[in-house]
């Protein structure tokens, strides 16, 4: 065991991920050389993952307020008011680095961590979503990673007992060495019974709850704050192991305990474990914290103070309890078979003191540990603008029928059923709209209200133009919620980028933040929680910039929401929004023409809002029950998805005029929706659209058992489905590349 008083060498400092100037800052702050444990505590608090040192400056620019926001960023999760005394608590977080090294456990602990963030605040989790990005399907590790991550997400959520209702999954060679696993959890709480991390009162007991502390995950957050190289697999011991059973017990015990009124403050032990949770509770409450590590329940004997302070063992909580109710609290935890130990107390010294075997192992100023963390204004350069690609300049290499079948059967747009059938998406009996539609809809308690939930981002757009890409990610989340009839309320952002010390990667981050901020402001869709994952880079090559947006909206009556499938034969199909045939950065251009280039479709936020508000109004007034947003793959793919969802075909009679047909079919212009309405209502809706200044076209009708594009042979719904469903199971069985 390394002694606590070991001399701190520059090499030791570097091994803790601290830069020489950051170490100098530590020396100035405490006026002496830190002990080994203190060095570990600083490395845990000041790494990128915990301190947001490269991102803080820019995150501050995001809009975080609205009348319905109860708690914005800075707590375990965001909280919004959903009426009738209820609140929705949600957050998304990445577990990218661990999932690449050990996909099953990396993914499980990602899900476990985000669930804990939600129930720490007093909410019962009601849904999970995720966003997954893998490398090229032909990369030798991809199949293994997909299999492990999906099994891990399912393995945790299924056992814990929360439905996984939505998500997205994409492949691109730029994720070959850095996959993305972003997990989102959503819970429901009483609006006046939200629990926070801020400690109050001097001399109150600090209680450790949950699983025992082991040597797993030491320096996990530090690993997540560095880029990868060929030796990254050697970091496997820093990956934690998830135990959903323990988490389920912890959930029930915590919620039961909260009912007793004994919880003053609560913080889950996530990244940087005991260190981060204790410091945060003290610092937020302007109190000191004293810990006695002899009392910490340990899984193995002989753990040092350093190891205990940096362990990221899972399924653990820290609380400040009302001393009068300590016995009652302990009885609840004993009933659930969980560890309960008083390991310290709050003090009025503003010091963070850690004792072990009667010796002081660390004694640091608690506020400064967080407040004085480095803050960098990293140099950043804007991405070079990409040329606009005129629709006329793109020749169609395939017939539109063949192109459509190819697109819906390709990795990007194929059915992800193989994935979501491994997730229990039906538990709790409230899943009104299951995976596969626009937004998932989960009924709130016994209804009639529901939550509309989605996760969105289009990384290739963000790569080509970070600002427009950032806007588009928010706009698409807003649109998906709108398409089911929901009122979009707030987002959580999970910002995945490369190495911030490279000005181009930092420029992508800054650009995306600017776009996200603009869209959130224009759409009244504030950010209430989030997570930043930088250093997603291997051997000098970064990922595509991927700011995943998790959106939450409210449906007044789940019986009235719209779905993707056609409701009947002979419905009139209306296309809402302008079609310019934008092929730059489209999946058509990439997967059919083999060109990954051009500027992405621009997002006009005023138009986005106008068109979306119009569509939502139609759904809420009961006149539209079928709506689908046009996104990847454009109008043709949207129609195919509507046909496959219902088993009813459609005929596109009048495509948007004045364009090469393939651009009208596959262009990815934003702010568009396809609606199916009873023919008797179509003219009135078109007139209403005209009056509201919303572009709307009657483009065809539903019916038959095939989708017919202009000038093409009909494609049977059966043929669409077999093209759509085949690729992923075949690939995972080793049959496709």
């Amino acid at each position: 065991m390394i002694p606590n008083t070991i001399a701190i060498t520059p090499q030791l400092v570097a091994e803790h991920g601290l830069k020489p100037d950051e170490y100098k800052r530590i020396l100035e702050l405490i006026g002496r050389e830190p002990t080994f444990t203190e060095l570990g505590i600083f490395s845990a608090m000041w790494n990128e993952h915990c301190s947001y040192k490269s991102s803080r400056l820019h995150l501050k620019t995001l809009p975080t307020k609205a009348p319905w926001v109860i708690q914005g960023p800075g707590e375990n999760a965001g909280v919004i008011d959903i009426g009738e005394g209820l609140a929705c608590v949600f957050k998304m977080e990445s577990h990218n680095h661990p999932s690449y090294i050990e996909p099953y456990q990396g993914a499980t602990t990602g899900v476990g961590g985000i669930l804990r963030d939600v129930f720490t605040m007093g909410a019962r989790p009601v849904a999970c979503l995720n966003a997954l990005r893998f490398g090229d399907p032909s990369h030798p590790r991809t199949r293994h990673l997909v299999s492990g991550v999906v099994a891990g997400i399912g393995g945790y959520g299924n056992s814990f007992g929360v439905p996984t209702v939505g998500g997205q999954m994409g492949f691109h060679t730029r994720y070959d060495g850095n996959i993305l696993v972003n997990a989102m959890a959503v819970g429901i709480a009483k609006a006046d019974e939200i629990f926070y991390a801020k400690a109050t009162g001097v001399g109150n007991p600090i209680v450790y709850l949950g699983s025992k502390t082991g040597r797993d995950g030491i320096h996990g957050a530090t690993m997540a704050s560095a880029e990868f190289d060929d030796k990254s697999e050697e970091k496997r011991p820093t990956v934690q192991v998830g135990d959903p059973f323990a988490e389920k017990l912890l959930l029930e015990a915590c919620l039961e305990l909260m009912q007793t009124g004994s919880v003053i403050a609560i913080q889950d032990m996530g990244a940087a474990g005991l260190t981060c949770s204790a410091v945060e509770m003290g610092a937020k409450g302007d109190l000191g914290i004293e810990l006695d590590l002899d009392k910490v329940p340990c899984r193995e004997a002989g753990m040092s103070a350093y190891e205990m302070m940096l362990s990221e063992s899972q399924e653990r909580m820290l609380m400040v309890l009302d001393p009068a109710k300590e016995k009652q609290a302990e009885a609840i935890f004993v009933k659930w078979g969980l560890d309960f130990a008083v390991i310290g107390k709050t003090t009025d010294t503003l010091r963070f003191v850690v004792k072990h075997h009667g010796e002081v192992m660390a004694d640091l100023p608690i506020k400064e540990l967080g407040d004085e963390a480095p803050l960098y204004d990293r140099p950043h350069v804007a991405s070079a603008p990409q040329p606009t690609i005129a629709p006329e300049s793109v020749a169609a290499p395939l017939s539109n029928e063949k192109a459509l079948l190819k697109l819906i059967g390709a990795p990007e747009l194929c059915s992800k059923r193989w994935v979501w059938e491994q997730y229990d998406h039906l538990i709790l009996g409230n899943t009104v709209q299951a995976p596969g539609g626009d937004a998932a809809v989960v009924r709130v308690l016994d209804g009639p209200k529901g939550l509309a939930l989605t996760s969105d981002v289009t990384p290739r757009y963000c790569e080509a133009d970070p600002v427009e890409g950032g806007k588009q990610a928010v706009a698409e989340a807003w649109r998906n919620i709108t398409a089911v009839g929901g009122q979009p309320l707030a987002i959580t952002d999970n910002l995945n980028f490369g190495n911030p010390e490279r000005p181009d990667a930092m420029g992508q981050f800054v650009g995306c933040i600017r776009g996200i901020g603009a869209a959130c402001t224009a759409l009244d869709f504030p950010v209430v929680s989030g997570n930043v994952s930088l250093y997603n880079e291997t051997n000098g090559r970064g990922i595509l910039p991927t700011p995943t947006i998790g959106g939450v909206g409210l449906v007044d009556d789940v019986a009235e929401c719209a779905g993707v499938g056609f409701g009947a034969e002979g419905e009139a199909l209306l296309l809402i929004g302008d079609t310019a045939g934008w092929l730059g950065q489209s999946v058509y251009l990439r997967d059919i023409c083999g060109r990954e280039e051009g500027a992405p479709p621009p997002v006009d936020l005023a138009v986005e809002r106008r068109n979306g508000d119009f569509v939502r109004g139609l759904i809420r007034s009961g006149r539209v029950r079928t709506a689908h947003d046009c996104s990847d793959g454009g109008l043709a793919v949207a129609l195919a998805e509507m046909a496959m969802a219902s088993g009813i075909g459609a005929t596109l009679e009048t495509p948007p005029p004045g364009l090469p047909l393939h651009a009208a079919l596959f262009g990815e212009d934003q702010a568009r929706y396809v609606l199916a309405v009873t023919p008797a209502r179509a003219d009135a809706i078109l007139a209403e659209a005209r009056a509201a200044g919303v572009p709307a076209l009657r483009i065809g009708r539903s019916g038959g058992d095939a989708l017919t594009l202009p000038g093409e042979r009909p494609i049977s719904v059966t043929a669409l489905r077999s093209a759509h469903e085949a690729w992923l199971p075949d690939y995972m069985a080793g049959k496709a590349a």
Partner: protein
Amino acid sequence: MKAAVVIFPGSNRERDAGRALRDASGHEPHYVWHADHELPRGTDLVVLPGGFSYGDYLRCGAIAGRANIMDAVRAHAARGGLVLGVCNGFQILVESGLLPGVLMRNAQLRFVCKMQHLKVDRADTPFASAYHVGQVIKVAIAHGEGNYVADEDTIDRLEHEGRVAFRYCDADGHVGGSANPNGSLHDIAGIYSAGFNVLGMMPHPENLIDPLVGGTDGRGLFASLVDHFAATAA
């Protein structure tokens, strides 16, 4: 109908079961803790809900099958009392000796959650009187270890005694083949005890009680139970 839902550490569909029972009977069930030794006085029906009792870290249901409360459940069954085990509850019933056979890992070695059709094999029991023989119903499945296996003699006996409750089928009622989601022998989705008072099944009828959430084909099972006790009381 006085129902008791047993909660083991790791149970996670106890609220789903409770909602289905409440909707059918108008009464909230009792929730019974696994460490208790007795069922509430006058319990008519015991429900072992779905979940991952004890994390399913040993064989599914193996530890729960030996929990304190299971002695009381076995005594209840021995008196002819009704017991329904769903998913993990079915696994617990086979581990506790109340039903024969075992639930192995799904043949494709993956967890599977989807809507699944079942064919009703028997309708003259307290659990299925609202259905008719041959009826095709749609319910949810959500399990990683639902592959029903038993030795040949046991399977023969179950078939001979008409103890198969439901079989996996497609929407048109064709049993077996690709409609079997987990490899179960004879496409078995649920079985009865010799006295037809204990039913274990992998699918979740408790999740199909609402037209907004997939459909209402699961209601029949709970309605049958309510009818049974209403008739018994009358």
